[in-house]
């Protein structure tokens, strides 16, 4: 994704060194060991453990006999109205934030790719959200949306408690999501735009293609791999979003912004249903993988 400059891999050592292979392997493992231990202990291990927990009735308390319950958590999940509500909100959030992020970022990238004045200002501003801690972004927008001291009501001449309004809270956090995720998307798309060969545009111009036609028939098809990659990543990041929304609304009002991850967090750490929450996480992982797989498969097929 990034365009880091890496040199070609060093030439293979001569085959004569074969005899030392076992020593080399030992050396390699020795060098890797300090990194492997924490990754296995705190990352791979917990992931497998978590998948296992999804099939138990584990409680997040010290005194509890955990037993295997098979797919009971899954059937409970399917029957849980709160889960479906949360799932629906998560789907709306992830799809709309990803789509809006993409459209806004594409527009900005196209503008930044032209020789306009104030482009520098916009470039710096476009990276700032990236540099801010997510918690500060959340708090900053809370100040913007604040019903009394916030600027938004004053600008629009309204008197709305944005983040506590049943129908407005979700759109309000979607705006924040778009603001937060635009920088990465813009930077990646801009890099993609700059790699489109100039000759294609010249040829297009010679053939009498107008600005729109050139954009539609040259820019977009050329950008396609970049677009597929960044929208996939954005989708995964958005569906797994937690911190930003936790700071903004904690899932309120009345669960209107309770994304699946917030729902799972509450189940696990407020109500202490560890097994159930793990199944929720597992189900979400499967949904994400399925959506991603379908999307990438379709894109690749059309690409042929």
């Amino acid at each position: 994704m990034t365009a880091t400059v890496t040199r070609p891999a060093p030439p293979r050592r001569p085959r004569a060194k074969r005899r030392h292979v076992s020593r080399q392997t030992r050396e390699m493992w020795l060098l890797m060991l300090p990194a492997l231990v924490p990754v296995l202990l705190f990352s791979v291990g917990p992931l497998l453990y978590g998948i296992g927990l999804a099939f138990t009735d584990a409680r997040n308390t010290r005194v509890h006999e955990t037993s295997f319950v098979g797919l009971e958590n899954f059937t409970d999940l399917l029957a849980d109205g709160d889960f479906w509500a949360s799932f629906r909100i998560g789907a709306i959030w992830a799809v709309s934030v990803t789509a809006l992020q993409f459209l806004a970022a594409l527009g900005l990238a196209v503008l930044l790719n032209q020789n306009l004045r104030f482009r520098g200002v916009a470039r710096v501003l476009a990276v700032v959200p990236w540099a801010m801690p997510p918690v500060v972004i959340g708090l900053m927008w809370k100040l913007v949306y604040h019903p009394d001291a916030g600027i938004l009501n004053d600008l629009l001449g309204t008197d709305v408690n944005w983040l506590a309004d049943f129908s407005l809270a979700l759109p309000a956090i979607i705006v924040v999501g778009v603001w937060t995720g635009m920088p990465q998307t813009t930077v990646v798309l801009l890099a993609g735009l700059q790699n489109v060969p100039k000759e294609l545009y010249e040829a297009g111009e010679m053939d009498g293609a107008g600005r729109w036609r050139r954009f539609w028939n040259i820019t977009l098809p050329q950008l396609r791999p970049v677009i597929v990659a960044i929208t996939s990543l954005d989708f995964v990041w958005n569906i797994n979003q937690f911190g930003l929304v936790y700071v903004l609304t904690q899932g309120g009002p009345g669960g209107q912004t309770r994304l699946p991850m917030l729902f799972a967090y509450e189940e696990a750490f407020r109500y202490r249903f560890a097994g159930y929450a793990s199944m929720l996480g597992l189900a979400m992982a499967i949904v994400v993988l399925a959506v991603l797989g379908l999307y990438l498969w379709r894109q690749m097929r059309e690409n042929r």
Partner: protein
Amino acid sequence: MRRLPQYAALVAYIVFLAFPLLWLLSTALKTPQEMALTEPTWIPREPTLANFTDAFGEQDLVGAALRSLIVALFSSVITVLISLPASYAMARYRSLLNRVALGWVLVSQVFPFILIIIPLFMILREMDLVNTLPGLVAVHVTFTLPFALWMLQGYVRAVPPELEEAAAVDGASRLRSIVSVVAPLLAPGVVATLLFAFISSWNEFMFALVILQNPDVMTLPLTLVRFTGPEGVARLGPLAAASLMATIPSLIFFAIIQRRLKSGLMAGAVKG
């Protein structure tokens, strides 16, 4: 004038991106009396730095900032120390591990954190590391590691293996050649990785929220979220000031890598 629509669009983007930032700044510079006005003002009538000194006066915030600093320092140094040898191995020995490491970076992006954090919490509880800073450091190290490894092994690759071979001819052992030949050449990469790991830890919220439940050990992001109580607007000024200060480390980081970012990702505009 043909470009008018484009300029209009660019201005709209600038306004959208900048106005929350300006509002944060404006709030941080206001007096409590001005905060309480029914008509909010963009430009503070009597700009004051009192909010910043107030934030420093808050015991909670200063303590939390110190704890965040300790966690971020330990996390970044440990991350670099354990990823240096591993990145060397990844860059110099061709093996499956390379692909496995990249695979792990991707997998850790797709899997929802809840699936990891519940068992992680249980493991840390068994080890008596819940509500402790070492527990949080261990978690931050683990989750910064894949990307740090990836960053560093790129830098190791850029060091020509011939240099090491020359050192070996001069009779240096492998360890010796790593320490006195490769390591000095890696300095810029190490600094970049250190900064990256520091910022990741300083900004991190989710794991801290689960692992640190006792207010006495909370890090800065957690304390900032808890800062606004039910008292209404009175504490918004110091909160805005503290938020701004919490952003400073990231801003420094981005100012430093901005050159690289420009040349790596945003470049090309000059090329044409």
